[in-house]
């Protein structure tokens, strides 16, 4: 039997903010080109865990991790790993759309510009491809030089996804990407996630259990820094093994 290929693996991972133990011995493996959802009540560590996957917590004073996170089998907290290289591989989309106060075009190509790419044709092609992938091209192709801040919230969030895709990562982390959006924009993002998993490994943190049910293949339930249960989404929602999971997904606490 061939061993299944895991894109990301967390081994005995512990994380601390100062003396606060935020993640307790997390062991899990995330499948390539699938959507994995993290659910759990506020403060359960799901966002912290997501942010350890591209080392976004590095800048927080007093934050430290123990254990390993393996990306394609390589420890991303290893000594020889450069954080900027890691983040080219593992892109991220945030809770609130956060476009730069620049033009739409400059937003999309920002990642390329900071890599020192100046070739206008490369920049234009990448911008168009990324915007097409997020179904934004038809809406913005005539106003690429206008401010990204003039777009609607949903468009801004798709722009942020396009911006992440432009540097061609293989993993995309999404931290409650639709929590600031209206239902129609949310539906568009969810559709987009479904499309994107053909080519990308997607990890999504969500507060919305229906959303986890709709978009994800696997779901992990976190509670006070621990990974309580991790299974195929269908299994976890229909026959959870733990009582706490059961209580959470049926809305008895949250």
């Amino acid at each position, binding site marked *: 039997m061939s061993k299944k290929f895991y894109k990301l693996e967390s081994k005995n991972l512990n994380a601390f903010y100062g003396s606060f133990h935020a993640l307790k011995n997390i062991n899990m493996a995330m499948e390539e080109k699938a959507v994995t959802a993290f659910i759990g009540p506020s403060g359960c560590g799901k966002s912290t865990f997501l942010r350890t996957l591209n080392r976004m917590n590095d800048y927080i004073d007093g934050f430290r991790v123990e254990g390993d996170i393996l990306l394609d089998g390589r420890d991303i907290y290893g000594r020889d790993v450069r954080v*900027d290289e890691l983040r080219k591989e593992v892109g991220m989309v945030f809770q609130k759309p*956060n476009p730069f106060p620049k033009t739409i075009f400059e937003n999309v190509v*920002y990642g390329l510009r900071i890599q020192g790419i100046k070739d206008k044709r490369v920049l234009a092609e990448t911008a168009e491809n990324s915007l097409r992938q997020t179904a934004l091209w038809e809406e913005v192709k005539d106003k690429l030089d206008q401010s990204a801040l003039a777009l609607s919230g949903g468009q801004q969030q798709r722009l942020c996804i396009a911006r992440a895709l432009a540097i061609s990562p293989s993993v995309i982390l999404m931290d409650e990407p639709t929590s600031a959006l209206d239902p129609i924009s949310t539906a568009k993002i969810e559709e987009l996630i479904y499309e994107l998993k053909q080519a990308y490994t997607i990890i999504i943190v969500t507060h919305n259990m229906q959303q986890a049910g709709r978009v994800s293949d696997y779901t992990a339930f976190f509670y006070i820094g621990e990974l309580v249960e991790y299974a195929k989404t269908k299994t976890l929602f229909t026959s959870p093994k733990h009582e706490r999971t059961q209580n959470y997904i049926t809305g008895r606490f949250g």
Partner: protein
Amino acid sequence: MTNSEKNRLKDKAFQVFGVFCTFIGLVVLAIFLIDILIEGFTRIDWEFLTNLPSRRASRAGILTAWVGTFWILILTSVIAFPLGISAGVYLEEYSKKNRLNSFLEVNIANLAGVPSIIYGLLGLEIFARVMGLGGSLLAGALTLSLLVLPIIIVTTREAIKAVPRSIRDASYALGASKWQTTWNQVLPASFGGILTGIILALSRAVGEAAPLIVIGALAYVPFVPTSPTDEFTVLPIQIFNWTSRPQADFLVNAAAAIIILLLITFILNGIAVYLRNKWQNKVKW
């Protein structure tokens, strides 16, 4: 009188007192301005601006003083700009929250309150004597740079703090380094605030006489400075000098020079307000 009537009366009384407090500063300033304008306005003409200083009040002009003031303005900005912004960026973006840095922070705030004449003594020892710059424009500008650095550092930090975390996150998540994030996102977004702080700092520097007198700036300079190593005078020193003369005509000259100096600081403050509004409209989160 009932209790509630008493309370209402107290309320009214405080309002009246508050209005009085608010206006007292403005009224004093207005009286001063009107007095100066009446005394000095008619003295200002082309010759007053273009004449060299003279022993005769009617022939004395402020050419050397305002040229000196502009030299000082430019040199001080060239020196204090990069130093102050860099220090502010370091403290806000790079430094870790440890004891050394909180010590630095407290002391920078303290430095902003050190009397300017102390900076003058420091400048006299270090720039004028040890570095051998004497009473030159460069020594003056360096001294004033020290004086305004704390102000620039503090305002730079405030402006940088106002840039939302989410913009930095977005930049880092796309693989940008700290420097790239600072240069491409944080500084452009906070530039309006930083510039405002710098201009306000400069308008403070323009009005300083004491530290420059201490380092040896002259009251009587019979030529227009043409290089940073030239000796110089500035408007506040010229004003100080004229007001200490016994002849009444020199007091009129001083009033006229005060109008010019006020005009310069008002223009600087005006630019600061304009830039702040312009940038506030441009960057919305």
